[in-house]
Structures are given as structure tokens and as C-alpha cells.
């Protein structure tokens, strides 16, 4: 089937469910909520991106509204709501470019007692990590993360059908979505390690990222089964789709990268431990296009584990610690298949994170320090932040993004020239 055709069919199907609802929604004026925000993030280093002196300067208007069905129509009886959220931005980084991002437009309904449906554009999250994701393959925006936008913008919306089943034994979420890549550094706003350029690159990067075309066989499927065991929560995950990062090479000469197919099998457990909250999560990623690992152009299968602990020390002071381990499987085959000129990536990665949060003045002042540190990669990323709720309507935030690293090709090391300090007012 033709790409455009499938796209149209899927969109029409999803949004027709949403608009079937709109028809029932009466003309009662919706109540809009939202905020306006100004954000500025100067930086010091010249890294050959579009601008040397800042990587964040924008104004944003977010509007959201929700329509709860009333009366005795079909959707009212099914406890339904229509949800909308959109962001208008004026981005000075791109010389005042105006943009609109539709973050949510979906219909949420309980069709049967044991079955919920959410159709349309929506934000999706699951898993137990704090800024670390193993079984959550929903799209993320790491550019927003590294320039200091609100955490909300780390998550990108998916165009999806989310079906939730509630039999007595366990709950099941099943999501069908179209492919949406992670937004990662590509040289215009954030410099990064570009293997084609042989080092950290800015606007000189000219990679061609090939997304899987929109067709039925490229839909993604994500499944989560979860239940409570006393105070603990156990979950199993399955994902079938694509890597969200362009990790693999299609055509080296043409500098083409693509998002390889993968399956992920995972599990997690979260609950009280040692008078805090503990969590552990595993994932096995099967790189379907290179499952035995001997194609040097395609990322290998991976094993990942993460464990964390959070404790409330009293007086609005909290501390959270995480350990993350990632191992490339079939590393021998990978090493053997490499060409002498290839960059060599390590077999395993250890990553530690720590989050400290302290609130002051009736929780109007919040100080957070989040720290990534990898002893194996010899890199890290420090994210300090102070925010002050001047009133219910005004909030000022001051923070910094300080990635560092000995090498240029590691996860945070490649970001080291993007250090910034930012302020936000909303």
C-alpha cells in the first residue's frame, strides 16, 4: 500500500473516533487553561552550531482544555472526555520562527466496564526509571532536555490507540502507534558526535536520517501487563517497533542512518524497600535486523537493567539514587566485523544517577540537583535547578545543563560543548 494512503487511513480511523465524540460535544464553550513562558539559555562555548551565544530563546503559549461529556448520549454514558493541549512557540533560535505543536487531541472513553480506550494524539509513559528508560520506547525530545525546557517536553506525543483491559488477574495496556523518532542533537542547535565527521560536529553535520515509511507493517506495538502485589507493583513489557534513535547505517557513502527494527522484552518491580521506595527494571532488546551481531552497520542486541531507591529524609528533603547497566550482546561478533577505520564503542556501560530535592518556604522554593555519572564512559551530566513560585500564577526557574566527558563519542561527552545556563518565567 502506498505510504500516503496508509497514513490517511490510520489518521482518519484514529481521529474519526475522536471527532465522533466532538459531534456529541455540545456547543458549550470550553474552558481553556494554560500558561505563557519566556525562556532564555545562554551558553559560552563556540561549537559551530547556528548560534554561539545561546541555545534557548523562546516564548511559548500552552493551552489545554477538556470536554467532559454530559447528558445521556453514548459518550456521556461511557464516562468520556475529549482532551486537547497545544503549544504555540516563537523560537528566536531559528530567527523568530513561529510554530504550533499539537501535544494532545484524544478521546478517552470506557467502552465496557473492563475496557478503556484512548484514541488520538497523546503522551505515553511507563516504566520505573527517573530520566532513564528501558521499556518505555515512546518518543522523547532530548534536545528539549539538554537546552533546559520543562521536563514536560522530554516526552513527545504519539499518534496512538491505547487500549486498556482490566480483567481481575492483571491490567493490560496495549498501544498501537505510528513511528515517531526521538528528537536528538543534529548539529543545528546542539553539537554532538558525528562519526561521519570524525568528531563533535555542528552545522557541518550533513547526515541523512531515514525514518521508516508510514505503512501498516511499520506500526509499533507496545504491551504492558501489571498488577499490585500487596504494596508492590509488578509489570511485564513487550515492544515491537523501531529504535527511536538513528543508531544504524543504511549507506555510509551517502551518510544515511536509519532506525533499526527491534523487540524488547522486559519486567519491573517497584514498592516499599528499606523505608523508602525501591525499583528494579530489566530489558532485553533484540535487534531484529542484526540479531547475531555480525553486521557492523546495525546496532547489536542489548541487555539493560536499572535499579533505584528514593527516600524522604523529612523536612521536604528527598534523595534518589539509580544504577543503570547496559551490555552490548554478541560483542565479539561486533568487534570482529568492524573495519580498522571504525570507531569502537565499549561493550558495557555503567551509569549512576542521583537526585536531591529540597523544598523551602512552604514548598514555594525548590532546589534540585540531578547528576548522571558514568564511571565506564568517564562522562556525566549535571542538572542543577532552582525554581520559585512567586505566586500561583508566576514561577521563575533558574538552571543549568552541564554535560561533560573525557571522550568525544560517549553519551554525555559528545554533548560537552552544549553547556548552558537558563532562566524561565511563566
Amino acid at each position: 500500500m502506498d505510504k500516503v494512503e496508509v497514513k490517511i487511513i490510520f489518521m482518519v480511523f484514529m481521529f474519526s473516533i475522536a471527532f465522533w465524540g466532538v459531534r456529541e460535544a455540545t456547543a458549550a464553550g470550553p474552558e481553556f487553561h494554560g500558561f505563557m513562558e519566556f525562556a532564555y539559555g545562554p551558553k559560552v562555548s563556540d561549537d559551530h552550531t547556528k548560534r554561539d551565544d545561546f541555545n534557548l530563546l523562546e516564548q511559548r503559549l500552552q493551552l489545554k482544555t477538556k470536554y467532559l461529556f454530559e447528558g445521556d448520549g453514548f459518550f456521556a454514558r461511557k464516562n468520556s472526555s475529549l482532551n486537547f493541549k497545544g503549544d504555540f512557540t516563537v523560537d528566536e533560535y531559528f530567527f523568530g520562527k513561529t510554530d504550533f505543536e499539537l501535544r494532545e487531541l484524544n478521546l478517552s472513553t470506557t467502552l465496557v466496564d473492563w475496557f478503556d480506550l484512548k484514541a488520538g494524539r497523546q503522551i505515553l509513559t511507563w516504566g520505573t526509571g527517573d530520566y532513564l528508560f528501558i521499556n518505555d520506547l515512546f518518543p522523547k525530545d532530548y534536545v528539549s532536555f539538554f537546552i533546559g525546557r520543562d521536563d514536560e517536553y522530554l516526552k513527545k506525543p504519539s499518534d496512538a490507540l491505547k487500549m486498556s483491559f482490566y480483567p481481575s488477574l492483571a491490567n493490560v495496556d496495549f498501544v498501537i502507534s505510528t513511528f515517531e523518532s526521538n528528537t536528538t542533537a543534529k548539529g543545528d542547535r546542539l553539537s554532538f558526535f558525528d562519526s561521519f565527521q570524525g568528531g563533535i560536529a555542528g552545522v557541518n553535520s550533513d547526515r541523512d536520517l531515514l525514518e521508516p515509511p508510514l505503512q501498516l507493517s511499520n506500526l509499533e506495538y507496545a504491551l504492558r501487563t501489571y498488577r499490585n502485589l500487596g504494596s508492590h507493583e509488578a509489570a511485564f513489557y513487550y515492544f515491537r517497533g523501531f529504535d527511536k534513535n538513528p543508531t544504524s547505517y543504511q549507506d555510509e557513502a551517502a551518510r544515511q542512518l536509519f532506525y533499526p527494527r527491534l523487540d524488547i522484552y522486559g519486567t519491573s518491580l517497584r514498592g516499599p524497600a528499606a523505608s523508602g521506595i525501591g525499583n528494579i527494571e530489566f530489558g532485553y532488546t533484540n535487534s531484529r535486523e542484526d540479531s547475531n551481531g555480525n553486521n557492523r552497520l546495525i546496532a547489536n542486541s542489548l541487555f539493560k537493567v536499572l535499579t533505584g531507591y528514593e527516600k524522604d529524609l523529612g523536612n521536604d528533603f528527598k534523595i534518589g539514587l539509580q544504577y543503570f547497566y547496559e551490555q552490548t550482546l554478541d560483542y565479539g561478533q561486533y568487534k570482529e566485523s568492524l573495519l580498522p577505520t571504525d570507531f569502537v564503542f565499549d561493550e558495557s556501560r555503567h551509569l549512576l544517577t542521583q537526585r536531591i530535592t529540597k523544598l523551602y518556604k512552604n514548598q514555594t522554593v525548590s532546589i534540585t540537583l540531578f547528576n548522571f555519572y558514568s564511571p565506564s564512559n568517564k562522562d556525566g551530566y549535571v542538572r542543577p535547578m532552582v525554581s520559585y513560585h512567586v505566586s500561583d500564577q508566576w514561577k521563575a526557574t533558574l538552571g543549568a545543563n552541564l554535560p561533560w566527558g573525557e571522550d568525544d563519542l560517549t553519551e554525555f561527552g559528545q554533548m560537552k560543548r552544549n553547556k548552558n545556563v537558563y532562566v524561565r518565567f511563566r
Partner: protein
Amino acid sequence: MRTIKMLFAVSLFFLASFSQELSFAQDELSASDIIAKSRLAFYYAGDDMKARVRMELINKNGQKRIRELTMLRKDDQDGGQPSSAEASEGRQKYFMYFYQPADVKDMTFMVTKYTDQDADRWLFIPAIDLVKRIAANDKFSSFVGSDFTYEDVSGRNPAEDTHTFLRNDKLNGKDCFVVESIPKQPSEYAKRISWIDATNFLPLKEEFYDKQNELYRQFEAGEIKEIDGISTIIQRVVKNLKSGHRTEVSFEEIKYNLGIEDDVFSERYLRRPPLQWIK
């Protein structure tokens, strides 16, 4: 002589029973019983409850912040007797849906409270579709920045304090028992003094003293209404006397014994608030 002895004994008997008549109920009720009954009346009224809660957080300069939410509560078991040590005793579930302020609108918060272990707390942040587990071992953390602690919101196990009856008193024309409670383990406060209504056992006033025996926090009940046959405090205020910050709370649209289903208190409804209860 014998008759005199008899007469003396009989008169003593009458005197004893007479004085018993005169005294308040504290002769039948120990200080612990009063606190236990008060906890039942205040935190366990009805089998379940729904209320629209409006909190005004006011700093010493008079600046106001607003928190507005719908609260659902369901008791698995009533509070029981303080001496009973059944594990599930007094277990309650709370569900909260926030309307205000704008940055927490549509957030939901769920608590399973136990009397013998830390509560389970979940927070749902809709902007990122995230269900967060909240570490809950500090019961004296401020609830949403107010002067109420988590313990104020969901109650304290009476067995955690040693209670002493101080006196009978009148507060705003109401007969009260005054009870002193001293924590058995080091706690946020060193001493609490409670004025408890002698007829409906609602706490009318509580004073919290620190280690220096200084009054630093005070709870006062405002208007009390009969709702579905249950005496209910619909206005309350907590003042922090050290910072000058205070929180005024009003409960509206209160209803008891609605038959709220158990499954409302689950991740399903945390992610998708139960519209029939929050509309």
C-alpha cells in the same frame, strides 16, 4: 455502734455513686478512649466520603495561594480499638483530584493508609503521563505546601502517643475533654494538647508544642454541620505560629456513604479520573 457503721457504709456508697453521676464521662472513658473515639469521628466518619476541598495558604504578608481538590475516602475497616493489633485495622484509601492551581490541574494523588506501616502514595502527572510512587516515611511533610502535614490529613495512630486526661473545659460554649498526648517515639512535636467535643468527639482545637515547650502550631475547627446525620467539621485552620503562615480549609459538597467502588482507588482511575465523582 453497729448501726452507725452500717449507716456510714451506706452513706459512703451513696456518696460514691452520687459523685459518679456528677462527673463527666471521663470516668468511663480513659484518655486513650477519648482520642480513639475522636479519631473515628474525625477520620472515619461514614464508610466513605466525598468532598470538594478548598485550601487557602496564606503567608504572613497576607499573600494567598489556592489549592482546590476533590477528595474521595473509603474505609476498608473502621479505626477499631487502639488496643487491637489487627494488621488491616484502620486501613483507608484516599483519592484526590486537583483543580487548582493551574500547574497541578488534573493531577491525581492516591494514598492507601495503614495504621501499622508506611502509607502507599502514588502521584499521577498528566503532562507526562507518569505514575510516580512517592516515598512516604515522613508523615510530617507538608501536604501540598500547606500547614497541614500528611498526618493531619489522614490521622495518627493513637497507640503512638501516651494520653493523659487533663481537665474538662468549655470552648465556644461546648463541653470538651482536654487531653495531653506525648509521643512514645521522638516525633515532630513533643506534646500535643487536644480539646475534644464531649458530645460528638470532634477535635475542636489542637496545640502542638516543641521540645522547648513552646507552642508552634495550632489547629482550630470552625463551622460544624450535621451532614447525612454525621457531625462534620466543614471549616478548619492550621496556623504555624513561628512562620506566621496559616492554612484555611473549607469542605464543600460533602456526602457520606455513597458506595464508592474499591476499584476507583487504582492506577486505572489515577490515570483516568473517575468522572462521575469529579464532575
